[in-house]
């Protein structure tokens, strides 16, 4: 049985699945219920000077009938008094001493930081997460992402916290920045023990096209919110990779962004996350999703022979590199398994209109079977990813694999196109139809 317990900068939890600081961790009731369901840790809804919230607060982004591929919110930090939260943290820790309770904090002055850090430590918090990520409302007041976007300010505040902290300090980063490694490095320089990312992405969920107001609507007006949910995962994974690979970011990472099942969690861990945090999926489906996550992760680790999370952490990092290091000689071509084709022709039209006109359709026994024109196929994957049938279109390697030539190699050998009509252009010799032929279709 693989060991799925996690240890983030000294904060231990029975499994790597934490609830992110968000509405699901607004109260002791919710956190207790989550731990009871199997969650390993919880980052409390951000504490500070309590706020006043608006109604409504969330905007959903759907894809056809699939609800909430994205979730946008304009709720602020806790609107409950600190004393109530502290009492509940204490109570949760009493029932669940081995689970991780992390206090997310957001205040302004050094004195406030000192006070609140001491308060939550006294209540029994196992760690502290500094909310330098919230991109709506709080940032207008100089907190949240306003801090995360200024590495120097961030470093200073981490320093203030470290002056009094006795438990590990996690610095939560905003993705609303050009290069996330800058605040990540600053977090380390300020003395932080770990980073967590990503916080939400600034967003408008959509627009009510009858009343001309973006969602969510508050008395006829809206405001930018923070975007999360499955749709943000690719953005978060890239930022995770950037931090995990950076030689000057030497902090363990808690991964956040669009995680809703064990597979998502595995992807985060393979890209260097020590544990993961979940919010939107719980807001959508409740705490019960943990029942799928724990056995899924365990079974995967058993299948792969991983004894613990450390053995798998970061295994995909070695396989992410700069574009200039990719092998230009590697050549794949789409191959269509005729017996699996259902005749939708989505591959044909995708290639025809959206790629390289490398598929033709022929009739065969009344079935319309698409066929790859190998000379035109650039091996882009588009047909394979639009095909609604699993394993119907596969990409097959055609080069001999003997020689690796990268852009960097070619640049060093002075063998790259440098002028507008350079004969070294990759598209030279690649067939394209005559523009006028388009009108015959």
């Amino acid at each position: 049985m693989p060991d799925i317990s996690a240890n983030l900068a000294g904060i231990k939890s029975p499994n790597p699945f934490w609830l992110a600081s968000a509405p699901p961790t607004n109260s002791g009731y919710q956190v207790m219920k989550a731990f009871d369901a199997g969650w390993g840790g919880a980052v409390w809804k951000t504490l500070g000077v309590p706020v006043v919230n608006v109604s409504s607060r969330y905007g959903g982004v759907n894809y056809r009938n699939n609800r909430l591929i994205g979730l946008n919110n304009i709720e602020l930090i806790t609107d409950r008094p600190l004393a109530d939260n502290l009492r509940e943290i204490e109570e949760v820790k009493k029932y669940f001493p081995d689970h991780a309770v992390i206090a997310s904090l957001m205040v302004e002055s050094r004195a406030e930081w000192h006070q609140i850090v001491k308060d939550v430590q006294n209540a029994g918090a196992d760690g502290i997460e500094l909310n330098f990520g919230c991109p709506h409302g709080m940032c207008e007041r100089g907190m949240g992402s306003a801090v995360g976007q200024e590495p120097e300010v961030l470093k200073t505040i981490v320093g203030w916290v470290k002056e009094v902290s006795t438990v590990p300090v996690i610095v939560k980063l905003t993705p609303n920045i050009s290069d996330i490694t800058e605040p990540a490095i600053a977090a380390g320089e300020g003395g932080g023990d770990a980073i967590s990312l990503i916080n939400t992405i600034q967003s408008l969920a959509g627009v009510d096209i009858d009343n001309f107001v973006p969602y969510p609507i508050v008395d006829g007006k809206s405001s930018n919110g923070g975007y999360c949910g499955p749709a943000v995962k690719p953005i978060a994974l890239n930022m995770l990779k950037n931090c995990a690979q950076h030689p000057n970011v030497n902090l363990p990472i808690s991964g956040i962004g669009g995680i809703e099942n064990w597979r998502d969690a595995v992807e985060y861990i393979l890209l260097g996350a020590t544990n993961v945090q979940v919010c939107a999926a719980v807001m959508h489906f409740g705490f019960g999703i943990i029942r799928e996550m724990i056995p899924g992760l365990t079974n995967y680790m058993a299948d792969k022979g991983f004894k613990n999370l450390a053995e798998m952490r970061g295994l995909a990092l070695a396989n992410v590199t700069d574009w200039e290091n990719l092998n230009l000689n590697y050549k794949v071509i789409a191959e269509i398994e005729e017996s699996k084709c259902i005749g939708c022709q989505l591959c044909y039209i995708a290639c025809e209109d959206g790629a390289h006109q490398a598929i033709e359709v022929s009739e065969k026994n009344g079935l319309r079977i698409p066929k790859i024109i190998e000379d035109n196929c650039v091996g882009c994957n588009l047909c394979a990813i639009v095909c609604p049938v699993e394993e119907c279109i596969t990409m097959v390697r055609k080069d001999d694999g003997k020689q690796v030539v990268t852009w960097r190699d070619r640049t060093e050998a002075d063998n790259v196109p440098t002028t507008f009509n350079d004969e070294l252009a990759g598209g030279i010799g690649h067939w394209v139809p005559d523009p006028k032929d388009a009108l015959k279709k």
Partner: protein
Amino acid sequence: MSEFKKPTSEQEFEENFSQIKPLMNDTEAYIESSRCLFCFDAPCQQACPTGIDIPLFIRQINSTDYTGSARTIYSANFFGNACGKVCPTEVLCEGACVYTEQNVLPVEIGRLQNYVSTQAINEDKKLFEVGKSNGKKVAIIGSGPAGISCACELRLLGYEVDIYEAKHRPSGLTVHGVAPYKITNEEVLREMEYLQRQFGYEVKYNSPIKYAADLQKLEKEYEAIFIGIGLGSTSSLNIKGESLDNCIGATELIEKLRMQHHNLVVGKNVVVLGAGNTAMDAASESARMGAEKVSLAYRGAKESIRAYEFEYDLAKNVGVNGVFNVSPLEIIGDDKVAGVKFIRTKTDNGQLIQVEGSEFILACDMVIRATGQSKQVELLEQIEGLELDSLNRISVDAQTYQTSNAKYFAAGDAVNGGKEVVNAAADGKQAARGIDTYLS
């Protein structure tokens, strides 16, 4: 034990004849429209006789452009609402859906089509502008799917159109001949009203065209004449006993059921002769009207029935019992039907032959002949130079639907011998184009 009790009230009738393709609600339509893959050059569209751009109208439902969706449907098929319910979608669009290749249920195209076209009708949405008048007049005989479709298209092209209808209401077999669990009278007639309001053709009801004088009058008053008369009454079997009480043609039974079901009394023990789609309807309807036992007798083998498989399944599901390889010799009874005398058949060298000495009597108190409809030859013979084929179907040009008498055009059952509403709708529209070419 029969599945259905004899209906004694309107409510019980409606329960027994509940719609097999009920109207979708918004959620169903949204989820179902989300499933469409938007295939390129889609098989469903190719399978539709009217060539509706199905992926487009479904995508328009999904993005809630219901007006655009309805226009996509109606610009291809003026019977868009009825066809959503009465089309044999299992063998047309839905049968061609690529999901079926994966053993996944096809997108419910028919019900989606009905959903969005019902909205257009409910809101009386004006989807078309009739064409600028070209001063020419066309007469249409018969207000069935072929005639109405021809009329709508002609109005778009700027013609004045008068439709001559023998009965007192429009749509032909759509209202008179389709099983009530497929579509209600109200639904059919509401679409007809919707079309007439929008296209502004004239329908002259109770105006049968029967005699040479009628035709001559039309020829004088109109530049072209479209024949959309469909078929006639149920063909005779030419066996003894067909005129006994309680021996009825399937077409006549269904019409009575649709027009005055309160007055329709079916037997307790019914035998339906035939195994086409109309036979299945008649059998199923008898069961739903409370018949305790319904047998469907066919002279050929089970594998050779003409009905669609799903139609036979529908009949079987309401308790209809199929009896195959039996050929009727005589309908027995004094004044009233008491049974049918059959002889067994078998296939020998590809020929269906009777098995000597295998006669038997199947007792019953009602016989429904579902042995096809006759052609309306009497009228057609009065049209000068009008050629019929060996089956008495009107011969027409495959592109223009022009008959051998240049002034006459024809489509629908009278030409194809009896197909679906959707075929007549497609061909009637196409014929209007032929008329336009002829007159311009």
